[in-house]
Structures are given as C-alpha cells and as structure tokens.
C-alpha cells in the first residue's frame, strides 16, 4: 500500500515534468543595447524600464514564448556598441535587437545586425541615412526620424510670425539633421546658425553673442548634460523672460528637468508625446510607470514602452515564429497596438507617421516640473527621406 502510493507520487511528478517540458517553448531572446553608464545612462535606463513595463502586460511572454531580455551597455561609443552587438549575435544568440539611443552608435552597428539576418527595432535613434537610401526590410524605427521634431517647430514658428531665429546645436550629425528639419518648414532665413563643440560645458560666450544679436527666439538642440548646462546658464543670464527658448527631444524632459529646476519654466519643446496626452494608452502608461518606478515618464520612456508593444504585437501575430522573416516583417509593417501617441503607423520606409505637439515646462498641482501640452502643431507627419527609400520586396 505504502509502496504503491510512493510509485503513484513519482509517476505524478514525472508526468508533470513531461507536460511542462512539452509546454515550455524556447525563450525569445531580445538584445537590448543602450547607453546604461555615464552621464547619458539616464536615457538607457528610461528606455529599458519602460520597455520592461510594456512586456509585463503579458507576463513577459510573446507568441506563447517566454521572453528573455539581454541588456548591453554601449557607453555612447560606436566601437563599444559594435563589440556588444557582436557578442549578442554570436554568443548570446539573440533573436532580435533594440534599444540604441544615439544615432552615431546605431550607424556603427546596424550593418552587422542586418547582415546576420536579425531584425532591429529602433526606439530612439532615427538618422536620415536609414530612413532614405539605406532603408532595410528588417529595420524599423518606432521613435522618429531625427528631423521630425524640429519640422513641427519650424512650421509653428513660421505661422506665429517669428522672424529672427537664432539656432544653436552641437557640431555633430543629429545637430545638422535638426537644423535641416527646422528650415524645411521655416525657410532658410535664419538670423544665426551656431554650432558648438560636442560636450561643451560653458556657453557664456555664445550667450553673450546671442544677447547682443537680439533675436525673436532661440531654437536649440542640446541633448542630455549639454542641455542642462545651456538652460541653467541661459536663465542665469536673465534671458528666459526676454527671448523665448524652443527646443527638441531629450533636452528639457523628465531626464533633465530635476537638474535644471525652476530655471526651465516657460521653455517650449516640439515633441511627439507629452504625459498629458489624452488617450487611454497614454493614461495607463503614466499611471503604471509612476506606480512601478516612482517618477514621471520621459518621452524616451514613452518610446521604449511603444517599442515593447510593437515587438509584442508583431511576435504575437506570427505566433512566436519570428524565424519566418517574411511573415514577421509583414506583421511589423501592419502592426496593431495601442500607441501612447494615439496616432501611429509605419511608413513604407519603416519610419513612423505621427503627430507632433508643442509642450511647455510648467509646475503641476504637486509642484513638480512637467511638460504641459499646449497644442498640436503637426498631423500625420512623414519624414522627408521616404522618397529615397526603395524597400526591397
């Protein structure tokens, strides 16, 4: 009696094991490469936190497969990014990659990724090259094309009748992209176009020059720490109330507002998302993100969250079989998900068509600095390079 009971238990255990082994699918490995350390580490953190949050909606499974996120740090260095990506492809054997925030890193690693046959879903970096001539069936950008944010600003400021615009940016490809985007809708007549060294700390000389030039408005693109430096110094020079300051993504948002402090109040940003956007997905995202991480999400976080949902929806659509590349590509192209941006779809070059908004830094009811939504400035904006893209069938 006792003996047969033991056998029954053993048999039961064995049966359970066998059943679970049959159910368990091979995990889907996602390589998430981003800037996790150094001053820009805050960007990688927001992208990754929100990406993970999106995956939690379906208990970290996609198309019936458990998901494993392999995280790598590119340190904002193209060569380091390249090494991390090679390792993820060769030894971690990831199934697809995402995460990169800086365009120069993305441009360095995109070829090995695509050559290995993997898909790359970009949450942030959107260099013009990849939207145009070098567009690729396996490359999708969920964030934006770099020029887009400033195209909205250019259109808005032209309509508002601004004449003398003083433009400032770091001397690197994205800085040029932003100016190109601005001019595409504002026109070529700028009062000044000033490019400064990458990583510059002190802007006193440039600010003195711009004060003497008496512009109608200053339009600047200084992501990360540079933006903190510039904005603090601009406010200390007493210019914030005299000359309105406009900027683009990653300059004055939840990753930097805490450090800039009240000096940022009144600044305008051209953005594709604000924490005040009125749609159910965005409201759920705001609440979930704050509950999980005890802070207000940045636009980077919104992009990371949408990227997670894009991958989720596409992998679900093919039932986890992403090795069928044609089917997976089709699933991505026609992806249906609840974007926090409300209006979102992929163009033929796999870059977004979406709306843009003007937001302004204000204090909310709890006294926190937030990017308050002012108005929509652009609807269904596609990028200017889609014509150069001949997507192979």
């Amino acid at each position, binding site marked *: 009696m006792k003996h047969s009971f033991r056998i029954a238990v053993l048999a039961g255990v064995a049966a359970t094991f066998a059943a679970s082994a049959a159910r368990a699918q091979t995990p889907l490995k996602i390589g998430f490469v981003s800037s996790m350390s150094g001053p820009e580490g805050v960007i990688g953190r927001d992208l990754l936190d929100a990406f993970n949050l999106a995956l939690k909606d379906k208990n970290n499974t996609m198309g019936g497969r458990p998901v494993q996120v392999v995280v790598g740090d590119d340190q904002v260095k193209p060569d380091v990014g390249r090494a991390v990506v090679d390792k993820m492809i060769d030894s971690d054997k990831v199934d697809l990659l995402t995460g990169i925030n800086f365009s120069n890193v993305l441009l360095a690693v995109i070829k090995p990724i695509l050559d290995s046959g993997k898909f790359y879903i970009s949450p942030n970096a959107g260099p013009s090259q990849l939207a145009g001539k070098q567009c690729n069936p396996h490359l999708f950008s969920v964030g934006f094309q770099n020029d887009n944010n400033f195209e909205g600003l250019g259109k808005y400021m032209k309509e508002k009748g601004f004449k003398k615009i003083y433009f400032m940016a770091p*001397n690197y490809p994205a800085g040029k992209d932003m100016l190109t985007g601005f001019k595409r809708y504002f026109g070529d007549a700028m009062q000044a176009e000033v490019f400064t060294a990458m990583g510059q700390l002190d802007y*006193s000389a440039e600010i003195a020059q711009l004060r003497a030039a008496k512009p109608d408005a200053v339009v600047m693109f200084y992501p*990360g720490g540079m933006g903190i430096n510039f904005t603090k*110094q601009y406010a200390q020079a007493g210019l914030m109330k005299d000359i309105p300051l406009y900027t683009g993504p990653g300059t004055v948002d939840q990753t*930097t507002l805490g450090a800039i402090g009240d000096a940022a109040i009144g600044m305008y940003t051209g953005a594709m998302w604000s924490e005040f956007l009125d749609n159910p997905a965005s409201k759920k995202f705001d609440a979930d993100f704050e509950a999980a991480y005890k802070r207000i999400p940045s636009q980077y976080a919104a992009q990371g969250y949408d990227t997670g949902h894009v991958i989720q929806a596409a992998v679900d659509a093919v039932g986890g079989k992403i090795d069928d590349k044609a089917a997976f590509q089709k699933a991505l192209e026609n992806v249906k998900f609840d974007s926090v941006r409300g209006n979102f779809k992929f163009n033929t070059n796999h870059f977004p068509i979406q709306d843009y908004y003007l937001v302004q830094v204000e204090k909310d009811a709890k006294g926190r600095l937030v990017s308050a939504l002012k108005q929509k400035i652009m609807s269904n904006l596609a990028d200017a390079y889609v014509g150069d893209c001949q997507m192979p069938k």
Partner: protein
Amino acid sequence: MSPSLFVEQSLNGVQLGVMLFLMAAGLTLVFGIMNLINLAHGSLYMAGAFFAATVFQLTDSFTLAVLVAVPASALVGAFVEWAVLRRFYQRSHLDQVLVTFGLILVFNDVVRMIWGVVPVPLSPPDALSGPVHLFGGVEYPAFRLAILAVGALVALGLYIVVSHTRVGMWIRAGASDRPMASALGVDVELVFSLVFSAGAALAGLAGLMAGPITAVQVGMGEPILILALVVTVIGGIGSIRGAFVAALIIGIGDTFGRVLLPPALGSMVIFMLMAAILAWRPKGLFPVHG
C-alpha cells in the same frame, strides 16, 4: 564686436580661466611635488558638486553647502591618498595612470549608487541667481561674478601661502628638489598629505562653484580634467603661477576663439595654443624643475 560685448566676453574668459585655475592648482602641485599623475582629480571636483547639492537641498543654505563640501572633498582626498595613492609614489607613471583611472571608475559608480543616474539639482543662491547691471549697459550673471571673485581670492591666498610661509617654502623645496628637501629635514610624507588634501579641497571648491552653472551628474569631472591637464602642462608642471597664467590664457583664448572662429576651429583653439606654447617652451611657461 561692440565695446560692451567685448567687456562681457573678456569677463567670460577670465571667469572660465579662474575656474580652470581652481582645478589646475591642485593638479599641478600634486604632479610637481609628488610626481604623481592623478587622473582622479576630476572625481574630487564631482564629489564637491554632489556634496554641495545635497547640503543645499537639505538646508537651503549655500554658505553651509560651501562650508561642508570643501572640507568633505579634502577628507575624501586625504582618504584616497592614505588608502591607495601613497603606495604609488615610487611606481612608474603608467602604474599611476592605471590606478587613478581605475579610481575614476570606482568614484563614478559610488556616486551612481548613492545619488543615482539622474543629474541632481544645484542652483545658485537666490541672491546670485539673476544678472546684474554693470557699467556701460553690460548685464552679467551675478553668480559668475562670484566665481570670479572667489577664484581671484584663492589665487591670492595660494600665492601668499606658497611664497611667504614656511609650509610654502617646503612645498617649493619639494617641487624643485625632493631628495634634497627631505635630506634637509622636511617631513615629505606630511607635506604630501597636506598638498594632496589641499588640492582635493580646491577641486571640490571648483566643483561646487561649477555646479550651479553646469549639470551635476556622474562623470562631470572628466571633461574639466582634460582642460586642467592642458593648463598644468602649459603653465609648467608644479608651478602655481604658471597654472594661473595658463588658465587665464586658456580661458580667454577659448572664449574668443569660440566666438570669432568657425566651430571646428573654435573648439581646437585650446589645443592649438598648447601646441604653440609647448613648441616655444617645451617645459611650459614657468618650469619648476631645472
């Protein structure tokens, strides 16, 4: 360029100069006297800024922030000297570069563990947060004037200490001939510790003065370290006077270079100045050793 703009840009140049001097003074003394290359000097600058930001947030008093942050930076410096660097005075420069580079990584990660990756707020005290009107219609940020004043006072103080006191004599003796100084009964180990802590205090002061105008974040010490090294080399390693003159040259040169030259050239002005001065005087403007 109008006269008032010229005045404003000159002020900007001198202000950047004294800021660099605060950083370079400690670096040049440590390098000149102890023959130690300390790449972690920028980490002490970062420490000063973070200490000040924390105290300012807690107490709302910038004065208190200064009074806490400067000695705290000196203590951190003294601890690092005692725990690690003391063992490396006799080692090769390559070993020193390696260990102090390692210290940068350690400091950055410790700061990240304590304060997180998000840059922390540090604004100027309310009285100094806006611009002030100077003669001729020049408007100038009040806090930058304060930096100028503090930098000038520190330079004067260092000059008096180094040139007119006994400790200063030991320091100068140590800088020009270490074996002879110790043979004459100077307690070299004590002088080393003092100098290192003083250098750390100056770096901390520079960090907390820079905090309100720049981003207080992990890794903020590295870009300024490069400029401070340039100043040190141009001035002549070990020379306080050299560091002061070189810092002003770099500050003014960089400011006007950025305004008057195209961007690619403007950001190279510092290094072109360094190349030109070193071609003319390979040991710097005021060489200390032989």
